[in-house]
C-alpha cells in the first residue's frame, strides 16, 4: 500500500454504490413480504426483516475486515481456504436433513450453508491455478486440474443434494473459457489419432462451452414457449404461436448486435462481424425451429415426459404449481405495480407463492413495482455485471482477473436462473437472488465475494506485471 492512501481511495465507487442500492431494495422487499402488523418495527429481531438487518450488519462488518486485510492474502491462502470449504462440505453431509437436504451447519439457532462459501473457495483456487499456468501451452493436465478444482466441490454438493448450487458451479466453465482453458486438448488428442490430421486447435473445441450453453438455453426456451400462444390486447383475434416470439427475439438481438458491432469494430472488420452475426442468427433460428418441429412431432407421452422435466406440466402439487403462481404474481404487476406492500399473491401471509421471501423474492418485488421496477432491477444487474467485467479486464494480475470473472459469472447465473424461474424461462431450481433473498449465508457469501473483488481492484496498482 502506498503512503497516504486511505483504505478506500481506489475503490470502485460505481460498483460499491450499485451493491448498496441493491441491498437497500432487497431489504425493503424483505420487509414488505414478511411484514407483520404485530411487529411493524423493522428492527424487530423475531421477524425476518429484523434478522435480515442483522445479517446485513454482519456482512458489512465482514466487508470491513476484508478491506483491512492485505489483498495478497487471498492468493497466498487460496489453497487452505479451498480445503477448509471442502472440509465444511464434507462434515455438512453428516448433519440431519432439513427440507430433504443436509445443507446447513448450525451455530446455535443461526445456520449457514457451506455450499455458499464453497463458491468463494473454489473461485480463489481456480484464480490461483490459472494465474500460475501459461495457458498458451495448455495441455491435458492443466485442463484436468482446472476441472478437478470445480468438480470436487460439485460432487460434494450433489451429495447433499443441492441441485441449484451444483448448477451454479458450471459458471466456472465460462471463466475457464475466457482464460483459454478449454476442452480443445482433449478433442485434439482424439481427432489427431486419425491419420493425416494434425490440428493445432479446433474452433469447436475452443468455443465448446458457450456454444453448448447457447444450444441448451435456446432449446429450453423454445420448448417452454412452444406450448404458449401469444395474444395482444391491442390486436384482437391475432394469435401468435409462442415459437415465433423466440425467432423474433433472436432477430431483434441480431439487429442490435449488428448496429453495435458496426459502431465499435474497425472498418476492415465490419464485413466479418456482419457475417458472424448473420451466421449466428441463422444457426440459432434454425436450431430453434428444429427443436420446435421436433417437439411438435413427438407423441403425447414423449411430450409429457419433457414437459414434466421442464416443469411445464400442469401438476397442481408439483413444481409447476409454484412457478405458475409465481408467474401470476409477476405478470399481475402491470406497468407500475400494485404498490409497496400491496402484493396480494406473493405476500408471505397469503402463502400462494412459497418461499416468497427467499428463492421467489423476485415475485413480490415484481408484483409491487410492476414493469417499472423489474426494468430497473434487470438494468441494475446488467450494470453491475458489465461493471465487474470492465473491472476484470483492467486488472494487471491474472489472479485478480480470473477472480473477478468468477464473481461476474456466479452473479449472472443466480440472476438468470432465479428470475428465469419467475418468468417461466427456467425450471424451478432453488437458488437465491443475490442481495435480495432473505438468508444469512447468501447475503454474507455474496458480500464477502463482492468486497474481496473491491479490495483486489483497489490494490490492482500494487501488483507488478
Amino acid at each position, binding site marked *: 500500500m502506498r503512503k497516504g492512501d486511505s483504505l478506500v481511495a481506489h475503490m470502485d465507487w460505481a460498483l460499491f454504490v450499485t451493491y448498496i442500492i441493491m441491498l437497500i431494495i432487497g431489504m425493503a422487499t424483505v420487509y414488505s413480504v414478511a411484514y407483520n402488523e404485530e411487529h411493524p418495527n423493522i428492527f424487530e429481531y423475531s421477524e425476518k426483516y429484523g434478522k435480515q438487518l442483522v445479517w446485513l450488519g454482519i456482512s458489512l462488518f465482514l466487508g470491513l475486515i476484508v478491506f483491512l486485510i492485505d489483498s495478497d492474502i487471498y492468493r497466498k491462502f487460496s489453497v487452505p481456504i479451498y480445503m477448509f470449504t471442502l472440509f465444511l462440505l464434507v462434515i455438512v453431509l453428516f448433519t440431519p436433513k432439513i427440507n430433504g437436504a443436509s445443507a446447513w451447519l448450525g451455530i446455535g439457532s443461526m445456520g449457514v450453508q457451506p455450499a455458499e462459501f464453497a463458491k468463494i473457495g473454489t473461485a480463489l483456487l481456480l484464480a490461483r491455478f490459472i494465474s500460475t499456468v501459461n495457458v498458451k501451452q495448455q495441455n491435458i493436465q492443466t485442463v484436468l486440474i482446472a476441472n478437478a478444482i470445480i468438480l470436487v466441490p460439485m460432487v460434494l454438493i450433489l451429495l447433499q443434494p443441492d441441485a441449484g448450487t451444483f448448477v451454479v458451479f458450471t459458471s466456472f466453465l465460462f471463466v475457464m473459457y*475466457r482464460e483459454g482453458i478449454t476442452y480443445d486438448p482433449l478433442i485434439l488428442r482424439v481427432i489427431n489419432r486419425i491419420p493425416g490430421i494434425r490440428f493445432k486447435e479446433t474452433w469447436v473445441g475452443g468455443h465448446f462451452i458457450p456454444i453448448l450453453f*447457447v444450444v441448451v438455453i435456446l432449446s429450453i426456451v423454445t420448448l417452454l414457449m412452444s406450448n404458449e400462444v401469444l395474444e395482444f390486447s391491442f390486436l384482437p383475434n391475432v394469435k401468435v404461436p409462442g415459437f415465433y416470439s423466440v425467432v423474433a427475439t433472436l432477430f431483434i438481438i441480431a439487429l442490435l448486435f449488428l448496429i453495435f458491432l458496426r459502431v465499435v469494430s474497425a472498418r476492415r472488420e465490419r464485413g466479418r462481424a456482419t457475417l458472424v452475426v448473420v451466421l449466428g442468427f441463422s444457426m440459432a433460428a434454425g436450431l430453434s425451429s428444429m427443436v420446435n418441429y421436433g417437439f411438435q412431432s413427438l407423441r403425447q407421452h414423449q411430450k409429457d415426459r419433457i414437459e414434466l422435466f421442464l416443469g411445464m406440466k400442469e401438476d397442481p402439487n408439483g413444481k409447476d404449481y409454484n412457478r405458475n*403462481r409465481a408467474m401470476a404474481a409477476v405478470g399481475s404487476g402491470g406497468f407500475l405495480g400494485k404498490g409497496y406492500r400491496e402484493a396480494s399473491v406473493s405476500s408471505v401471509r397469503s402463502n400462494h407463492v412459497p418461499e416468497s421471501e427467499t428463492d421467489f423474492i423476485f415475485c413480490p418485488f415484481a408484483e409491487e413495482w410492476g414493469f417499472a421496477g423489474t426494468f430497473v432491477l434487470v438494468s441494475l444487474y446488467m450494470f453491475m455485471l458489465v461493471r465487474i*467485467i470492465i473491472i476484470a479486464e483492467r486488472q494487471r494480475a491474472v489472479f485478480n482477473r480470473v477472480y473477478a470473472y468468477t464473481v461476474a459469472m456466479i452473479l449472472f447465473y443466480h440472476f438468470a436462473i432465479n428470475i428465469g424461474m419467475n418468468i417461466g424461462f427456467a425450471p424451478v431450481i432453488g437458488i437465491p437472488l443475490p442481495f435480495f433473498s432473505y438468508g444469512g449465508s447468501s447475503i454474507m457469501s455474496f458480500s464477502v465475494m463482492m468486497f474481496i473483488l473491491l479490495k483486489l481492484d483497489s490494490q490492482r496498482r500494487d501488483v507488478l506485471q
Partner: protein
Amino acid sequence: MNLDARRYVILAFILMVGIIYTSRLFYMQVVDDQWVLRAQEIAEKRWEITPPRGVLFDRTGKKIVSNRTYYNLMMVEAEIRDLDTAKFAKLIGWTREEVCERFKEIVRGEGTYYNKNTGKRTPNYQKIRAYPFMKELTLEEVARIAPHLDNFPGFYEEVTSMRSYPYANGANIVGYLSEVSQEEIDEDHFYKPGDNIGKAGLERFYEKELRGRKGIRYIVTSAMNNAIESYADGKYDTSALQGPPLKLGVDINLQAYGEKLLKGKRGCIVAIEPSTGEILALVSSPSYYPNLMIGKRNISMYYPKLILDPNTPLLPRPLASEYPPGSTFKLLNSLIALQEGVITPSFGVACNKSVVGCHNHASAGNLADAIKHSCNPYYYAVMRRIVQQNRKKSVFADAEVGLNRWVDYMKSFGLGLTLETDITGLRPGRIPDVAFYDKWYGHHRWAFSTIRSISIGQGEVTITPLQMANVAAIIANKGWYYTPHFVKSIGENGPLPQYRKKHFSKIDTKYYDVVIEGMRRVVYEPGGTGRRALLKDIVICGKTGTVQNPHGEDHSTFIAFAPMDQPKIAIAVFIENAKGGGGLWAAPTASLMIEKYLKRKVTEKEREKTIIEAVFSYMR
C-alpha cells in the same frame, strides 16, 4: 487464439439474457392479461353476501312472508383430524354408512373439470374448500350439535336465511323458492349455484325486487383459502341491500277464511276491490301448507307428493284453470245486446223449452227478470240477435260479422287474453272467434245455430275465475277496471305503472244499471237463483252459474259484488263438481266472503257451517 476478444462473447451472452428477460417481463406484465386474471383467480376472491329477501305484508300490515334464520353444518376436509365417524354419526343422528355416503355425495356433486389443453379430467372438489355437510338445520338441531363440534375439527356451523310463512294461507299466491337451475344461472349472472330463486307465484314475478342487492366483498385470500385482508381497503366493496317490502292488496284474514270455506272441495274464490283492482283474496282449493316448500330438504321430500296428488294442490286454479263460465256469462251477453241495440231492457221472451232446457220459472218479460231467472231460451234469443244482425245476405257471412263484433266486446272485458296480473301461471281462457270456428267447422260452414251454446256460457267458451271476478268488478264499476293485481306498493313506491291505467269496456255506462238491477233481483226477489246469498244489511248483486261439464257433477259458480250502491268487493266463486247449482254452493260461499270482508264477522252461522262441513266425494 485471441483470448481478449472472448470478453465480448461473455458480455454479449449476459446482455442477451438481459434483453430477453426485459422483453419477456414487458410482455408478461404490460401486454398479456392472462396473469392478471390468474392472480385474481388465485388470491382475490369475491365474497358474496346474500341479503334476506324482501318481506311481504298484507293490506292490513300483517307480515305474511318473512325470513327465518337457519344453519348449515359446513365441512372442510383439509381441516378434519382423526374423525371418529361413529361418534360423529351419533352426534348428528345418522348412521356411519350415511356419513360416509354423504362424503361421497359431496365429492360427486361437485362434478369434474375437463381441461382441454391436457385432456385430463380433474374433480372440482377441493379439500380446502368448505362444503355444506348438512343443510337447513333449525336452531334446535344446531343447538344440540354445535357445542360438540369442537371435538370434530373441520366442521362448523354457518348461518343462512330462509323464507318463513307465519300464516298457513295463500301458498298459491306467494309461490315458493327453490335452488336455481343451470339455465337460470347462465341467463342471469346474479345467481351462483346453491342460490334460491322464486319458482312460482309472487316470489317468481317479483324476483328482481325481492332478491335485493348482493353485497360483494373483495378479499385477498391465502393459499388455505382463508380471508386475510380486504382488497384495496374495501374500495370496490358494495354492501348487501335487502329487497324492498311488498305490500299486498290481499287481506290475509279473508284469504284464510276463503280457504276454510273451500276445505273439502275443489274450487276457487277470487275477490277484487273494484275501485283499485287490488286482489283481496285468491283462494285455490285444495292448496298446500307453504312451510312445506322451504328449503331443498323439504322440497325434495314434499314436492313429489304434491305434484302427484290427483287434486293438484300446486295448480293455482284461479289463474290457470279455464272453466266454462256458465250462466254468469249471460250478464255479458245482456250488456252486448243492449249496446248493439238488438234488445231493450223491456225485451221479453217466452220460456219455451223446446230449443233448450230450462228450469221451471215464469217467463221473463224483461231483461232484469231474465237475469233473475237465468232463462236459457231468453239468452238464445238474445245471442241470435247479436250474431245474426242481418247485415249480410248469407246467414254464414252474417254470423261472421256478428261474432266479430261480439268478440270485440268480450276482449274489452279482459276475456280471451292473458291479464297482466303480477303473478306467474296465468292462462288466457278462450273466447271463440271467427278463425276458431272456421278451423273447427270450415269457412262459412257455421252460423248461430251451430255455436249457440256460447249464449249461456257453455261450449267453446272458457274463462278463468280471476277473469270472472274481474267481470264482476267491471260491472260494479259500470264499465271500467284496473288490471287485477296483488302488490299495491313496492317499498316507498306505488304499484307497477301498468296497474295505474284504467281499462274501459266497450259498453256505455247507462246499460249497466238494468243488468245490476237484474243481479239484485237474483238475490233479493222471489224466484231469483241466488237467494242463498242473501244478507240482511248488505245489498249483494250476483249471478249464479251451473256449469255442465263432462267430468261429472255440475260446477257451481257465482259472481257478485257488494254493496250495490258503492261496491267494495267483487267476487267470483267457482266450486268444481258440486252437487247442485250455482245457487246452492257458490252463492252462499260468496255471501259469507262478502260479509266477512265488509263486516269483519259472520252472522250467517248456519250457512257457514253447511259450507265448511261439505266435503265432496273426490276429496275423500
